[in-house]
């Protein structure tokens, strides 16, 4: 299972014990095509790029937000503002996962988010708890006119009544599977993998 920032601690730890299988489901081309389509949908949904603002969720959501920003610029000739959100302090499972030593920066675009159309960008949508935390944090920052949720992969398994507005690809997954989104800045390549841990290791 992927953690909120798209990393796979659990998988990597157990890989030492039991070999897990890794299946590529999107290569760089596929991801780029998906991003381009997501950008178009976004523009269409918003009737243009005006008032749009991207908020990438730490950490891989931030990279994807940059890709989206570039696509929108190519299509509309307009650089939409981009901010980042670290939802660590808004999580509902601090006691269970333990504190993280380094909390990423939540950074708003200079104009703030009041009356803006904010697009939350993340890599994988799973239980919906990260999106919930991101919504709470955004509300503390100000009063956006509209919030959209935009994810590269929707793997199902929702625990909260949250649905994405824009999805790059939907993937059916089992509980013992994790979806890993790889980005060049952190992983050296652009791809999506599904990692399957044998049930006895999970």
């Amino acid at each position: 299972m992927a953690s909120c920032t798209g990393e796979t601690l659990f998988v990597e730890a157990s890989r030492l014990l039991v070999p897990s299988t890794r299946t590529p489901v999107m290569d760089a081309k596929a991801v780029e095509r998906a991003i381009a389509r997501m950008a178009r949908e976004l523009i269409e949904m918003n009737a243009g790029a005006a008032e749009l603002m991207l908020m990438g969720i730490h950490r891989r959501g931030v990279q994807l937000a940059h890709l989206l920003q570039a696509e929108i610029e190519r299509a509309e000739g307009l650089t939409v503002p981009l901010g980042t959100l670290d939802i660590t302090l808004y999580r509902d499972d601090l006691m269970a996962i333990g504190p993280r030593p380094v909390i990423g920066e939540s950074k708003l675009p200079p104009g703030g988010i009041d009356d803006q159309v904010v697009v939350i960008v993340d890599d994988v949508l799973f239980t919906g708890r990260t999106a919930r935390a991101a919504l709470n944090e955004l509300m503390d920052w100000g009063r956006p006119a509209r919030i959209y949720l935009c994810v590269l992969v929707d793997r199902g398994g929702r625990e909260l009544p949250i649905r994405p507005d824009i999805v790059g690809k939907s993937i059916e997954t089992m509980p013992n599977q994790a979806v890993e989104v790889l980005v060049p800045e952190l992983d050296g390549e652009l791809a999506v993998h599904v990692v399957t841990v044998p049930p006895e290791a999970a």
Partner: protein
Amino acid sequence: MTRTAPSLGKDLVGLERLEPDQISTILDTAEPFKEISERRIKKVPVLRGKTIVNLFFEPSTRTRVSFEFAEKRLSADTVNISSSGSSVVKGETLVDTARNLEAMKIDMVVMRHGSSGAASFLADRIPSSVVNAGDGGHEHPTQALLDMLTIRDTLGRISGIKVCLVGDILHSRVARSNIFGLLKLGAEVAVCGPRTLLPRGVEELGVSVFGRIEDAIEWADVLNVLRLQFERMKAGYVPSLREYNRVWGVSSARLDAAPKDLVILHPGPMNRGVEIDSDVADGPHSVILNQVTNGVAIRMAVLYLLAGGVPEAAEAAKGGGES
């Protein structure tokens, strides 16, 4: 890679028993918390539902207020108990106070107490986390942490920096925590003050001793000027405040004679004109107000890290994350 923090354990009693990476973790964690105090809504929900008791057996305004801000900005519920107007003054023992608090199901206690060792005493007896907000002449870990954060902010690092603590080292919990913490992070540490106010064997802790303030100023990159308690004069440790200022006071004339600019810290509250002159306290090299700001961030970091449960739970739950 995401990693969980090196656990601080259940409590923060002092810096003497912390590992260097634990201290660094607290300082690093404080960084993002600084920004929360700049927000429009200065509050995050991370300690929502946690109950914290601020148990102050000694009067303290700044430390208590700083902890309260930290707690409120993390959304914890807080109760303040101070020595006046509580059973603390009616002869109830510390252990009874602790048991009563425990019976009310609290999560953390922030305690200031006049006796050295009181924090570890409490920590050993209750399952809640205990944060030492100063115990007698023993330790005041959050003060030293905020001092170190301020030094790191100002000079970019702690390792290799020469820090001299000036004044009443003998009775000072701030001095002890600073000595332990700074040495662990690789600073060079010295103390300077009248011999009556330097504890026995302080050199064996690994610090240098300066007899004259002029020598300390020549050596140091940072001066941490400690408050001189007026009671020390009555007890005969120094003959008069006037003489103390003349011989040991940190004045701009003395600082001007130094080969380089020094960073000036003071844990407060200051006695202007005694241990520190006003033009130094208000001068360009004083970071005294940065210390106050950093105090809230450090205390938020400590409360956040202690609230985070035990490492085993963290291990077990890692797989249960989400996207």
